[in-house]
Structures are given as C-alpha cells and as structure tokens.
C-alpha cells in the first residue's frame, strides 16, 4: 500500500526501493550509510546539512519514505530537524548517534523519533527500517477509521433511534471499530488526565481541547507553530508536549489531506455548486453517496464538513491510505484550499468559518460533492468551526460547495462542526458532535452561538446556501441536541446532531454537527450535505480535532431521537458509524 500514494512510485516490492533520506554531517558515515542502504535495495539520498535536508523534504513531500538523521549536526540540532520533519511531513525519522546516553535516547523519543540507532551502525539495523514506514501508515489508517467510526456512531445515534449502546446502527462495523479502537486506546476519554500518565498516553482530544489547540495554532500562526508554543498557549496542565506534537502532526496531515481533496474535488466536482438547487439533490445524494457512511467505507470516514454544508465524504481509508498519502503529497496544488478554509484564524470571526464551505468555495464546494463517493480523505477534518463562526452569520457560509444549501434565508443552518478531535484530515463529517471530554460529543455549539447571533445568522443565512456551520469548537454540547426549531424539518434532521443548539435559533440555523447526518434525509430545503471530507477541511481551520480520542458512542446519546429520525432514514448507519471516533 505504500506504493500507491507516492508520487514517485516505487516499483519494487516493498520494502525494496524504500526511499531514504540520510542526514549526517560526517561525510565518512554518510558514505557508509549510503552503501549499506543501497545494499538493502533502498533508494538513498544523502545530505550533509539539516537545512539541505529540510529543503529537499519540503520540495517534494512525497519524495521520501523515511529520514535517518544524526543527532549532532553543526547547523541544526538533530532533534529540531526531527520535529520539523514530523510536523511538516509526517515522515518516520530515525535518529543516530555515537552517544547512547539514556537522556539522549529519551529526548529522541520525546521529539518523535521512531528509533534511535547507535553508531557504529550495523547493516542489519538498517535492513528493518521499513517497519517504521509501514507502522506509521497503519496508524494513520487506524486513526481515520477511528474517527470514522465515531462519526458513524454519532450519526447513527443522531439519526436513528438510539440504541442503547449508541453504537451502531449499523451495528457491527461501528461496534467493532469502536471496540477495536477502544481496545487499542484504552483510553478513558472522560479523563484526559490519564493520557499523560498512561503508558499508552493517548490523549482524548475533546472538542474543547481541540478547539484550544486550534486557537493556539492560529494564534501562533500556522507556519510558525510548534508543539511547545502550542502547549504553552493552551495552558492545559496535564497535556504533554508529546501529545501536542502528535496531535499537530495529525492536524497538519488532515489539513493537507483536505487540501488535496479540494484540489481533487475541484477537478472532479466541477459542477457542483452549492447554489443551485439542483445541486442540492446532487449534493444530497452526494452526500449520501459520500455518506456512504454506509459504512462501507469506514474509510469514508471522512466526513467533510464543508463549511456550511456538511459534506460527507466517504473516503475509503484503506485504499486511501495510500491515496491519502498520495493525495496529500500530490496536492500541492492549492495549498490548502481546504485548508484555507479551515484554518481561518480562529480569532477571526466566523467569517472564516463560514468559509468552510468556502474555502472550498468554488472548487471546493464542488469538489466536495464531487467527492462523494470518491475517496474522501480518510481523515475527517474536523470542521471545528470556531464558535465565532456562528457569529458569522453574515458570512455566507460558503456552503458553496455542495451544500445544497437550500438554506432559505433565515434558515441558515449552522452547522457546527466541532472538530472534536483534531485528527488530521479526518473529517468526521458528521460529527461535530461535540465530544466532550466525557466523551459526549456535543454538537451544538454552533447553535449556541447562533443563538446569540441569532439574528445574524439568519440573515446571513440567506446568503449562505449551506448550512452555516459554525463550529463551535468546543462548544458542542452534545447534550444539546436540542430540538432544533429548524425551519425545515430536513434541516432539522440534519442538524439533529448538532442542532441542539440550533434549536434556539429560529432561523434555520442549525448547527449541524459533524454528525454527518445523512443528509439524505434532508428535505429539499436543507440539503445539508455533510461533506465529509470537505467539511473538515472547512472547518479545519478551526479545529482539527482528533476525534478519535473523543468520540465514543455515548455522545450520541444525547441527541434527541426525534432529531435524527429524519436524518437517517435514508442514510445508513454507516454514516453514523463514521461519526464516532473512537480514538
């Protein structure tokens, strides 16, 4: 699977042809390592300076599979390089040194190194470095699946009669996914404090937490961001730098994935513009398709919540894995379209959020829909839409894309996408269910804000086609799934998830949570398209929260059944399955 995603395809059977970048200021070692790696049938590129290595990596992100770097280098600390690579490229990095002191090795691990080799290095140690590449991919897929699972669950809950366990509607998939994830994570998402102490240390990135994270990221400036800075800003005592670093990595991955998607979509979608009603149908189905939530693909997981419209994109993670990778790497094109949307400075008033859809605006929106059915990024970008977004109201949510926004004026739906977990690109479209620390996902947030801005929203809404998705970032109060006094029932349905808060808003503001409520049920009025992939992208700006951690089936419980009833009728549980992140 590795081969697929790379733009520089490797034709040899894995692991042969593994593309390794070796960085060492010691020329003698560089020669030796090169020879050793070549003997392993790997494709080697050597670099004597960390700066050069970074340039090479940035130039073509998909050009290398793994990086091996010495710890002590004159121009840059090896650990710093390690961090950069992890954050920007998300490649596995192996550290080397003649010094094997525990403190150094520890530092390596803390900075994210997947291994630490002592010089003199033996050939046999190099032979197996491919395992790190493989492992990383598997983890990525898993993360996405988790998110998808969560989303699914969420959606399921929202839309369907809630089963007591909330998991499944469709049952198995979700449950199994969830269980698997749970087993893997053993994480009690109600107790974030655990994360740092458990050896698994899997932080539960609640919507709130993710929101803080995104806020910090935006404050620092996306480009200048670093785990330490974020951690300091977030001011969450129990959170470790490591937690933030890995979360950031996923966030970036998510964003880039979105971007890719957007790019892809643009090309694909072409036609869908959110505005036209016809689109709605298209959109809706789009959603539906995408929503495949039908779990078929857990991979689809990514529910993109595009800006206003939740676009549920089903992406198949598995196949995606590679693709994802590939896409991501290939994207290149618009840097961030999706990202653009998403990452609007959280500080920015909702407008940015509204952007969601926008950013994808044109292409994006279309893309999003286009995506339906196509591979959506497996990761859901969380469309964490900062609450501020709610206020956006004025900003037309660009639900453009795909959302068939039928939002009627005044009916703006705010789709709040809470990105619960920032997991990178996973857009759990649906769920913006807010996942609270306690695991419940709250979707509401948007509405809350909407409420306040109520008026605004509504007015704005008119412009917005799509639902305004306001991601209240962490506000999602799942509990809230308050009945949404939505204008349209359909919307309601959709909003179901997040709508709770929406209920307040008279206007059609419905915050639609991630819940990727199958938009299918939407009626014409609201075509909430949960664009899975897109939404996230859109909201990403806001918060990419790694949902995985958060979501658990319980979240869905809150959503009032009635809200979901319509939603799901057509959609399958699959959506819901996706919705839950079990991180």
């Amino acid at each position, binding site marked *: 699977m590795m081969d697929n995603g790379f733009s520089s395809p490797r034709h040899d059977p894995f692991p042969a042809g593994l593309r390794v970048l070796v960085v060492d*200021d010691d020329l*003698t070692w560089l*020669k030796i390592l090169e020879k*050793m790696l070549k003997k392993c049938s790997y494709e080697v590129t050597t670099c004597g300076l960390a700066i050069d290595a970074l340039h090479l990596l940035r130039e073509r992100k998909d050009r290398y599979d793994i990086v091996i770097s010495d710890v*002590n280098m004159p121009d840059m600390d090896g650990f710093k390089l390690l961090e950069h690579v992890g954050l920007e490229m998300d490649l596995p990095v192996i550290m080397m040194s003649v010094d094997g002191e525990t403190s150094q090795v520890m530092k390596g691990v803390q900075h994210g190194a997947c291994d630490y080799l002592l010089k*003199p290095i*033996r050939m046999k140690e190099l032979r197996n470095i491919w395992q790190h590449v493989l492992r990383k991919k598997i983890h990525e897929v898993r993360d996405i699946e988790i998110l998808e699972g969560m989303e699914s669950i969420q959606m399921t809950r929202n839309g369907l009669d809630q089963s007591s366990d909330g998991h499944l509607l469709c049952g198995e998939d979700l449950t199994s996914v969830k269980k698997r994830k749970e087993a893997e994570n053993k994480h009690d998402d109600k107790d974030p404090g655990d994360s740092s102490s458990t050896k698994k240390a899997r932080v539960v990135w609640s919507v709130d937490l993710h929101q803080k994270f995104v806020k910090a990221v935006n404050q620092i400036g996306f480009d200048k961001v670093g785990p330490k800075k974020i951690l300091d800003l977030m001011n969450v005592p129990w959170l470790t730098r490591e937690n933030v670093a890995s979360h950031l990595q996923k966030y970036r991955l998510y964003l880039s994935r979105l971007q890719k998607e957007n790019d892809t979509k643009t090309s694909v979608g072409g036609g869908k513009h959110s505005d036209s009603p016809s689109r709605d149908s298209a959109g809706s189905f789009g959603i539906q398709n995408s929503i495949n939530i039908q779990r078929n693909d857990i991979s689809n997981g990514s529910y993109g919540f595009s800006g206003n419209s939740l676009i549920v994109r089903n992406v198949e993670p598995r196949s995606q894995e590679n693709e994802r990778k590939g896409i991501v790497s290939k994207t290149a094109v618009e840097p961030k379209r999706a990202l653009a949307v998403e990452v609007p400075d959280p500080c920015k008033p909702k407008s940015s959020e509204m952007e969601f859809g926008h950013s994808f605006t044109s292409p994006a929106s279309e893309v999003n829909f286009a995506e339906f059915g196509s591979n959506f990024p497996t990761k859901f970008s969380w469309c964490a839409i900062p609450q501020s977004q709610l206020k956006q109201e004025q900003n037309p949510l660009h639900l453009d894309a795909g959302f068939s926004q039928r939002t009627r004026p005044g009916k703006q739906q705010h789709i709040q996408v809470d990105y619960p977990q920032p997991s990178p690109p996973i857009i759990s479209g649906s769920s913006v269910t807010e996942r609270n620390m306690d695991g419940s996902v709250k979707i509401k947030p948007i509405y809350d804000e909407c409420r306040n801005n109520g008026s605004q929203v509504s007015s704005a809404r008119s412009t917005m086609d799509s639902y305004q998705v306001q991601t209240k970032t962490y506000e999602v109060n799942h509990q809230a799934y308050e009945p949404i006094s939505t204008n349209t029932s359909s919307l309601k349905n959709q909003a179901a998830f997040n709508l709770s808060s929406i209920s307040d808003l008279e206007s059609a503001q419905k915050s639609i949570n991630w819940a990727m409520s199958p938009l299918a049920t939407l009626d014409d009025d609201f075509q909430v398209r949960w664009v899975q992939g897109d939404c996230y992208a859109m909201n990403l700006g806001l918060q990419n929260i790694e949902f995985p951690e958060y979501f658990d089936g319980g979240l869905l419980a809150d959503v009032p059944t009635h809200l979901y009833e319509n939603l799901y009728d057509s959609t399958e549980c699959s959506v819901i399955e996706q919705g839950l992140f079990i991180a």
Partner: protein
Amino acid sequence: MDTKHLKQQVAYVRKSLFDQGYLDDQFMQLEDLQDDANPNFVEEIVSSFYSDSARLIHNIEQALARRPVDFSKLDDYMHQFKGSSSSIGAKKVKMECSQFREYCCAGNIEGCIRTFQQLKQEHATLRRKLEAYFQLVRQTGQGETS
C-alpha cells in the same frame, strides 16, 4: 612474492590489527560492504576518515590552546571525532576519545591535553598500519578477506 604468499601476509596483517585492538567489528562491516560496485570501498572510507579527522584534530588543537578553555566546545569536537572514528572501527582511537571526554566533563585541561596527545599518536599509528595494509592488499591484486 607470489600471490599466495602475499595473501597470507595480508591475512596476517589484518588479523594482527584486530588482535592488537587497533580495529574492531566495524572494519569487518566495511569489508562486507565492499563489492564489485565498490571494489576499494574500505580504502576509500579510511581515506575519507583521515581527511575528515585532520580537520577535527586541527579544531581541537585550537580549542585546547584557547584560554579560557571552552570545555563544552571541546566536548562537541571530541564527540564528532568519536563518531568519525567509529566509522572505520578505529578502536584505540575511540577509547582515547572517550577518555578525553571524561576529562572534559571533569574540567581537567591537563588530562585533556595529555589524552589528546595519546589520541593523536594512536591516530597516526593506525594510519600507518592501514596504509601498509592496503598497499599489501593492492599488491595482492584483490581485496582482503571478507
């Protein structure tokens, strides 16, 4: 000398380098890497090491002469030197590096200076021996062992 004899001599010299502790396992690793694509790989690596180390030695000497002594810098240089020495399996040289670093940590400049002298000697001795060795190997017309 006939080839057989030469080969025997090469083998003998090689073995003594290991037995006397001048070289360690890493040298054998290098020999294993030598192949048709790089028939003189070991010799090339050794040359590379010696040209790198000349620069390092120079830096260390300068740092040792400076007052006040910057032990942290000295330690850095020595760390580099040790890493470099490990590349060819220069066992004795590496040991001197470790010793030097200990003195550095202790802030013992005399110890550092003394050790450095020894290090340079070992470094030079190994170079001589390896040069002689490679010459023999060349005379033999093929790489030694493996």
